[in-house]
């Protein structure tokens, strides 16, 4: 009997994009160290004006300190570049605000390895965790999920989740093409993956409510969100060919 493939045999990198997260980052890093002691971590400090970088360094974690604020997509491309150049096999994006529980990282990575997908989304599902959205914003996210499910030929229910794991092919593609646009890190990234011939899938995980701020329930904001998301989606889908780069052996 052959042994099952396991992410624990491979080089895994957790990428934490952080913008002014000095208050929550330390706890997140402690939790990652406790849950996943053998996994490398890199914090991408997205031009913070607070002590985000110092907090990360004090915990003995590598920091990619961006001199200017690029947004989540920009921070993540820097992270994927780091991963590609250091030949990591798998990456997991984890938010610095504590919304993504580190104990769910193995869930996503196991799903990635066992399904052979290139991108595995950690999807919030009803019942597990406290995360909920209602009303217009919820409908907007449903519309996005339906469209993106068709694009990626997978059943996706939570396309705006940032809790994602990537395999080698996705790391290589994202290290050069990860978009910095509005919603680029979630919606457009999935389109890029699908059009680059990668397989996308999702697995259910629990998430915690964000430490600060709460999701907006304003219908106007939800409408603006949907219009911008559909615009981003439309442009992403009609873009001319995406350059696919070979990962160095």
């Amino acid at each position: 009997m052959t042994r099952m493939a396991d992410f624990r045999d491979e080089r895994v990198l957790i990428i934490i994009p952080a913008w002014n997260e000095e208050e929550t980052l330390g706890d997140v890093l402690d939790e990652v160290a406790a849950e996943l002691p053998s996994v490398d971590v890199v914090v991408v400090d997205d031009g913070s004006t607070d002590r985000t970088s110092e907090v990360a360094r004090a915990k003995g974690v590598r920091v990619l300190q961006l001199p200017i604020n690029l947004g989540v997509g920009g921070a993540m491309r820097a992270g994927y570049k780091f991963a590609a150049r250091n030949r990591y096999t798998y990456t997991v994006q984890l938010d610095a605000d504590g919304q993504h529980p580190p104990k769910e990282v193995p869930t996503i990575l196991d799903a990635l390895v066992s399904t052979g997908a290139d991108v595995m989304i950690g999807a919030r599902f009803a019942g597990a965790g406290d995360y909920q959205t209602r009303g217009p914003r919820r409908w907007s996210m449903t519309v996005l999920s339906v469209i993106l499910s068709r694009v990626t030929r997978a059943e996706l229910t939570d396309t705006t989740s940032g809790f994602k794991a990537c395999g080698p092919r996705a790391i290589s593609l994202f290290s050069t093409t990860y978009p910095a646009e509005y919603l680029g890190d979630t919606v457009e990234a999935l389109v890029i993956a699908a059009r680059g011939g990668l397989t996308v899938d999702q697995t259910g995980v629990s998430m915690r409510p964000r430490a600060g701020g709460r999701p907006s329930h304003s219908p106007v904001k939800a409408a603006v969100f949907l219009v911008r998301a559909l615009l981003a989606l439309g442009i992403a889908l009609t873009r001319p060919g995406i350059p696919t780069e070979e990962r160095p052996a």
Partner: protein
Amino acid sequence: MSGYGFVIGLAVLVVFLLVALLRSRRIREKYAAMWIVLGVGIVIVGVWPNLAVSLARLVGVETPSNLVFAVAIVILLSVCIQLSVALSAQEEQSRTLAEEIALIRCTLDDSGIPGAGGGRGQGDVTCAGPEILPDPQPDK
């Protein structure tokens, strides 16, 4: 003498200003080209106003000044679009530079050189990788 002298003077002034900016390298040729075309066009139409009249008749515009306005708007619009395109390319370039700076700074952290950074090493992993791999240039 009508207002033509004033208009011609203005157009000549604009062309001279652009050439002066070009000569002092404060503006690049690719951005100045459109403005120079516009300035020279105004000078030509200013000197020979009948040109606008016959051109308007040729394309079927009733009032010659409307043709001048329409052409001016189109040129201004294309300059704006050109600037947006240039700005987007610029943003992508600064983004790439910011990434490289962050990666290099991380390598300095690992180097252990005092004052290079506040970080600590993490085993065999280096920030910039075994060699700097060239990233593909975005399509021009």
